């Protein structure tokens, strides 16, 4: 696809930065409102209409707070860490396409780039944990490293199914491949694994062990204040939005509006972007909803879940996908009106998903 945004890349990145900051502000407000309503409260109400200015107010407050560095901290490591967390997450947005034309830089190896970047901010978290010279920070940093590296694998293997099906790593082409049917239909197990693993990657409940407020009082963030803390916060919510957007791109059909062919480019772009954002916000709401529902896992449950459940089942998903692609066409179709390979993918994927749910059920029952 050739790009039609009439700016050079530097300006596009500036626009992207503004968009990301505003998205983070909106997400924090939405999260507090959703959690409030789940707990039969109202959430923020005092700044502006229904507290709508709460997020900017908090941002301004954080900007004016003192930027403390503990005496015993490793200064360079400590002060560098927030940026090393935020920058890779921000870089993820560069190749995520809102629509075919609304993308900062469409990369041919976009998915590879994203998977590579999504594990990079572990370094920042470890540096924060180490540099703070605080036992809780160190514990949190080590926990986050263990967790993020473990969940990186199922994430990458789940994505592999999409790559096999579409035959490309280019995110725009992946979405164009979903014009007829979103990939979640063909890759139900892959979607579920990707969802769970990216929950862990975002550090959201029930996998918020690194930041567990009630155990390690904020993990690597303990000693941070003011703007550096705000940058961590920005990174967390930006990664939440990036992961949800990625889920929409890979599995939920991106900006492909059903039954809306033949629109002129500008209307199509607007409707497509709105449709994309709607789906992303629904996923974001789901994440907040989970946060209001589930308690935190124990660290051993977390690791067991990654290595004993997610990774074997992501292998299974990959093998099933490859098998259906190679041998599916030689077999009779299982479902009416559907290509044989597709029908085998749908059936096998659904069976595997049910199997996965049952395995999770048994696992959680035993470890409860």
């Amino acid at each position, binding site marked *: 696809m050739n790009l039609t945004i009439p700016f050079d890349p530097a300006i596009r990145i500036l626009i992207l930065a503004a968009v990301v900051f505003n998205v983070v502000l909106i997400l924090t407000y939405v999260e507090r409102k959703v959690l409030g309503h789940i707990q*039969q409260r109202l959430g923020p109400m005092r700044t502006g209409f229904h507290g709508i200015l709460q997020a900017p107010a908090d941002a301004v407050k954080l900007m004016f707070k003192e930027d403390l560095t503990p005496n015993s901290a490793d200064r360079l490591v400590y002060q560098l860490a927030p940026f090393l967390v935020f920058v890779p997450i921000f870089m993820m947005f560069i190749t995520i396409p809102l629509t075919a034309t609304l993308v900062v830089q469409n990369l041919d190896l976009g998915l590879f780039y994203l998977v590579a970047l999504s594990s990079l901010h572990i370094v920042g978290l470890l540096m924060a944990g180490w540099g703070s010279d605080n036992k809780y920070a160190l514990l949190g940093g080590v926990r986050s490293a263990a967790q993020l590296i473990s969940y990186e694998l199922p994430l990458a293997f789940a994505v592999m199914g999409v790559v096999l099906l579409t035959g490309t790593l280019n995110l725009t082409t992946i979405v164009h491949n979903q014009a007829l049917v979103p990939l979640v239909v063909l890759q139900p197990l892959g979607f579920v694994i990707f969802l769970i693993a990216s929950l862990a990657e975002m550090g959201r409940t029930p996998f918020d062990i690194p930041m567990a407020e009630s155990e390690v009082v904020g993990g690597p963030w303990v000693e941070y204040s003011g703007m550096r803390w705000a940058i961590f916060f920005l990174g967390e919510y930006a990664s939440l939005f990036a992961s949800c957007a990625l889920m929409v791109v890979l599995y939920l059909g991106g900006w492909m509006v059903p039954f809306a062919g033949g629109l002129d480019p500008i209307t199509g772009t607007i409707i497509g972007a709105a449709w994309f954002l709607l789906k992303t916000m629904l996923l974001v709401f789901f994440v907040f909803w989970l946060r209001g529902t589930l308690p935190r896992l124990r660290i051993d449950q977390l690791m067991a879940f990654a290595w004993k459940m997610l990774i074997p089942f992501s292998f299974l998903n990959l093998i099933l996908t490859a098998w259906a692609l190679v041998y599916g066409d030689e077999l009779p179709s299982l479902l009416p009106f559907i290509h044989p390979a597709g029908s085998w993918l749908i059936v096998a994927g659904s069976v595997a998903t049910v199997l996965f749910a049952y395995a999770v*059920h048994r696992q*959680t029952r035993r470890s409860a």
Partner: protein
Amino acid sequence: MIGVLKGLVQTWKTHWRPRVTVQYPDERLPLQPRYMGFPGLMWDAEHDEPFCTGCQVCMRHCPTQCMTVTMMDNPKFADDTSKRRKIIDYFSINQSRCIACSICVEVCNFEAIEMTHIFEKANYYPDVVVDLPDLLQMSADHRAHKDTMPSRETRDQL
């Protein structure tokens, strides 16, 4: 797994339930009639003087020793407009120490002190020691909402 789904359904339902909290400074929950805020001194309208005679029994019984009470001869007793020989001279309560336990009210021989509904004493420059005029004013403010208070007149009915 089933538990997770049940939990999600539960929180989804709760999400649409009406709120149970109150936007505090704008709206308040009603206080119970016997709610105990800070103590205040009552005014005897009949003789136009406080009920308190300064007998110091509250001061001696106060578990946190937050009170200072002194007594004086009642000038109105001399010109025969009051039956009280002694009257309160100086009365102060350190509200940062008061625990609103109501023991002073229980021990008062003249039913001169009462628990008001006043509890919002936060201030940028808190004057924690409250003296006689303020204590009388607190009680007077409190008695303006007479429907919900256990005053001298209504205490026996409660």
